[in-house]
């Protein structure tokens, strides 16, 4: 959002030509996330959010707070792929999926509770979330990865 100071509540939106179910699968299953989320293999269940690197290192390990397929998902976030960020406090990521009635769906990502994680806030604000959401949109609409 802001190019100067990273905000402690960040909101990103993208419209995708896909159904809510397709988006839900793409954000909760590792075969999909590996193709648009910096190679991360992410598995989300009703209770747990887990992310692993292509080599199997733990990149994310948190609780699932809300689980309402295919509309709403909220989970904890610690950037365990970086030592400094891994020591910061846990923040929260919420995905909202809203069909628009014309074959498109609005996906909103809110990354908040970042007060105790300033390095994480800066890291996810630049290329971070918009890179991920851009690549997710390309994958769902064209079947191809965006080489970010």
């Amino acid at each position: 959002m802001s190019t100067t100071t990273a905000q402690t509540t960040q909101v990103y939106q993208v419209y995708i030509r896909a159904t809510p179910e397709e988006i839900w699968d793409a954000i909760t299953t590792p075969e999909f996330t590996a193709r648009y989320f910096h190679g991360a293999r992410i598995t989300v269940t009703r209770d747990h959010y887990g992310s692993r690197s292509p080599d199997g290192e733990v990149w994310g390990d948190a609780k699932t707070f809300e689980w309402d397929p295919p509309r709403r998902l909220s989970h904890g976030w610690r950037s365990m792929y970086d030592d400094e960020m891994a020591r910061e406090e846990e923040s929260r990521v919420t995905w909202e999926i809203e069909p628009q009635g014309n074959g498109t769906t609005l996906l909103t990502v809110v990354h908040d509770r970042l007060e105790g994680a300033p390095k994480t806030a800066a890291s996810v604000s630049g290329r971070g979330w918009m890179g991920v959401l851009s690549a997710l949109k390309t994958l769902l609409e064209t079947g191809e990865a965006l080489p970010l």
Partner: protein
Amino acid sequence: MSTMTAQTTQVYSIFIRATPEQIWDAITKPEFTAKYFYGSLVEITDDAWVGRFADGSVGVTGRMIEHEPPHRLVHGWRALYDPDTANEDESRVTWEIEGQDGGYSKLTVVHDRLERSPKTAESVAGGWSYVLSGLKTLLETGRPLAG
């Protein structure tokens, strides 16, 4: 951005599998903008940026401030489509296009100087994400986002 109060500097970015030249054409030529910019036909001249609806009426207009194809376009923004926003001060829109390694580009839209245009700020807060999403779909698939 914020869902509560519209900000006076709004920043939106998106990554598109396209060259800067393709994005420049898509944001400055009416045959492209008609397919993703709420149907608006955008025309730019040395002096102005004008967005017309299909019936020819002017929806948005502003002064041309910077014009550096294919990387940077800066223009004023007065939203004439609504009497409330039409009476507010002109705000400013900056388009920045940065080619990236790997055959794609980063497009950033900054809509600022909205301090004296609160209704405009609120009106565009949801709109830019829709416009940029539609632009990306058009360039990557050759089709409009909806329909």
